[in-house]
């Protein structure tokens, strides 16, 4: 059991932009250096590295440039943004097992100036793998962008539960409100209204432009270490109260269309049940939620899948501003990927750490645990972080 024995002890980011002007390797190096400096550790203290299978920077390349010598643990997690929290889980497992002592998790991408994930990818469609075969049932038929694959589920969700485009829009409005007071956010000082959302152009109906997260260049790194070592380091540790991965029955990447219902995110349910079980916490205990927000409808469905409200009722849950700062459950105080930047969910982990430390620009008062989720519609992951001693110990 990981619970309470491992912590995030350092975080680092580059600036978030639309054109970094640097290679992804350069971005990765900058973020890792910043995270180590934040932790008060040297590159030679690091003996483990974890990233995404989608990342272009191999662990060994990063180790060479940063000056990490020998590596005892290195790992890559698959399924796009679903990997985000799982990189930290991998680090925590390795540290709990005594395999490694200090593990850095990183993600660097020129997603706006380089390969844009929102476009139709011939490479993904033609991959000579089981996932390529899965894509054969969707891409050739004209369904080949993340927005379109989500729109298919969003339409069914609207049909079954009566949710509307305005319900989706409230998620975007909250994110942009939060980003407006975050100087690191791309949409700093640029809030939107529900009318702005409703006036934005269709991308893949029922999704509008403002239902889709932005595209960004940038990098994020987090340093993970054992809780005892963490106590001697520079920052208040964000203790990993729970960490989990999840894949549902009959799982596909973005196109799990063959289950009985098309109104939930069962893979996230797998994550949520483990988080509550490991931590002994319940949804009401959560102070802040950092929910992966590449597309607004999946934020509503996450609230339901994690147990913050019953299935189909997220639109009522958020109607009175519950997910905004000052609400019952502030979601994405940094502005999320809709407002701050799209760093494949890793910037959400940084925000969660800041909320634990009490250093966020949009700090939510209290000492309760912070929930983080990773990519939705894909096999995914999640974390519960808290200051030392605040989480109940699981059974």
């Amino acid at each position, binding site marked *: 059991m990981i619970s309470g024995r491992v912590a995030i002890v350092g975080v680092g980011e580059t600036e978030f932009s639309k054109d970094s002007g640097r290679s992804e390797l350069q971005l990765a190096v900058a973020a890792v250096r910043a995270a180590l400096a934040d932790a008060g550790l040297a590159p030679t203290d690091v003996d483990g590295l974890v990233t995404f299978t989608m990342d272009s920077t191999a662990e060994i390349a990063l180790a060479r440039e940063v000056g990490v010598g020998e590596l005892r643990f290195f790992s890559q997690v698959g399924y796009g943004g679903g990997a985000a929290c799982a990189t930290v889980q991998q680090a925590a497992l390795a540290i709990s097992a005594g395999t490694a002592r200090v593990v850095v998790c990183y993600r660097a991408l020129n997603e706006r100036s380089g390969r844009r994930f929102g476009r139709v990818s011939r490479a993904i469609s033609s991959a000579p793998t089981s996932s390529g075969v899965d894509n054969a*049932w969707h891409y050739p038929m004209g369904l080949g962008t993340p927005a379109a694959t989500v729109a298919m589920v969003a339409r069914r969700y609207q049909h079954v539960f009566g949710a509307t485009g305005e319900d989706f829009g409230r998620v975007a409005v909250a994110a942009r409100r939060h980003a407006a007071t975050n100087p690191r956010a791309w949409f700093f000082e640029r809030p939107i209204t529900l009318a702005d959302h409703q006036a934005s152009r269709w991308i893949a109906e029922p999704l509008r432009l403002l239902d889709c997260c932005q595209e960004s260049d940038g990098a994020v790194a987090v340093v993970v270490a054992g809780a005892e070592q963490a106590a001697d380091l520079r920052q208040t540790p964000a203790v990993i109260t729970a960490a989990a991965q999840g894949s549902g029955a009959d799982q596909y990447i973005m196109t799990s269309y063959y289950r009985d219902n098309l109104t939930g995110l069962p893979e996230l349910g797998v994550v949520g049940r483990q988080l509550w079980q490991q931590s002994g916490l319940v949804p009401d205990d959560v102070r802040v939620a950092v929910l992966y927000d590449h597309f607004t409808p999946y934020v509503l469905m996450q609230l339901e899948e994690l147990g913050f409200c019953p299935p189909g009722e997220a639109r009522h849950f958020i109607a009175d501003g519950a997910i905004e700062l000052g609400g019952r459950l502030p979601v994405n105080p940094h502005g999320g990927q809709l407002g701050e930047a799209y760093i494949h969910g890793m910037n959400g982990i940084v925000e969660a750490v800041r909320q634990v430390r009490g250093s966020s620009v949009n700090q939510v008062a209290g000492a309760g645990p912070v929930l983080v989720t990773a990519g939705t519609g894909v096999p995914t992951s999640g974390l519960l972080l808290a200051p030392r001693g605040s989480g109940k110990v699981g059974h």
Partner: protein
Amino acid sequence: MEDTVNAAAERIRAAGAGPARPARDPVNLPMIRNWLEAIGDRNPRYEQDGLAPPAMTQVWTMRGLHPAADPTDPLSAMSAVLDQAGFTSVVATNCEQTYHRYLRDGERVEVRSRLVDVSGPKRTALGEGWFVTTDSTWYVGAEAVASMTFRVLRFRPPGSVAATPASERTAAASDVLRPVVTRDTSFFWAGTAAGELRIQRCGRCGRLRHPPGPVCRQCGADRQDHLVARGTGEVFSFVVHRHPPVPGRRLPIVVALVELTEGVRMVGEVLGADPAQVRIGAAVRVDFVRVDAELTLPAWRLLP
């Protein structure tokens, strides 16, 4: 259309033999050796005497793995006419070759072909089509060394929208993303090419499944069969895709997740629909979009 085909056939036939097409390489031992190995012919005489197997004659004048269209070739010209008319699939039906002598190492061969006959339209087991017959003669200098009568059937697969003339297909149809096809899924794509919507059926317990896979999740059998769907269903959900561009398509398009009458779900484009008229629950019928000789996509049309 029948008149158009007949007129083109008469014009191409009257033009007689096309220009001589020389072999890319002279008759040579490495190619002879490769061919003998591929065919499994162990007769040592060919290599010893520097002779080419007669059945190899056509090999010398083949145009490579990815030949460009050759409008001066009578068969290519006639095929293009039939393709335009919607007879887009092809199968060879007869090939009779006559050899006048062995070809020798180092000889340069060339071939000339002429259109002999075009007959149709005829109903065949494969679908309505035209039989196209050509005669070809191989020469070394002025000497005829071999000849061949070759007949193909150009046909329209039944039930397909191949009736759409090639000129009306979108210019970028060749950009359509290709499915990755494996031994587990080839039955489906062979089905669409034949105008059938096939659903995988377990060879032991009969469970239906889409997308298909090699092992039945109900009984564990790895013996898979299929049935031909009735081709009807209901829209379970749908997307109106407006942005960004989709290779091979003009936007917007409607893409639906259809629940088939047989119970499985399948994604496909809804053709010819006003996006505002598509509804969850709408009844649809399958259609087939022939992209080219290798790929036919399943698609849907709203029922009135």
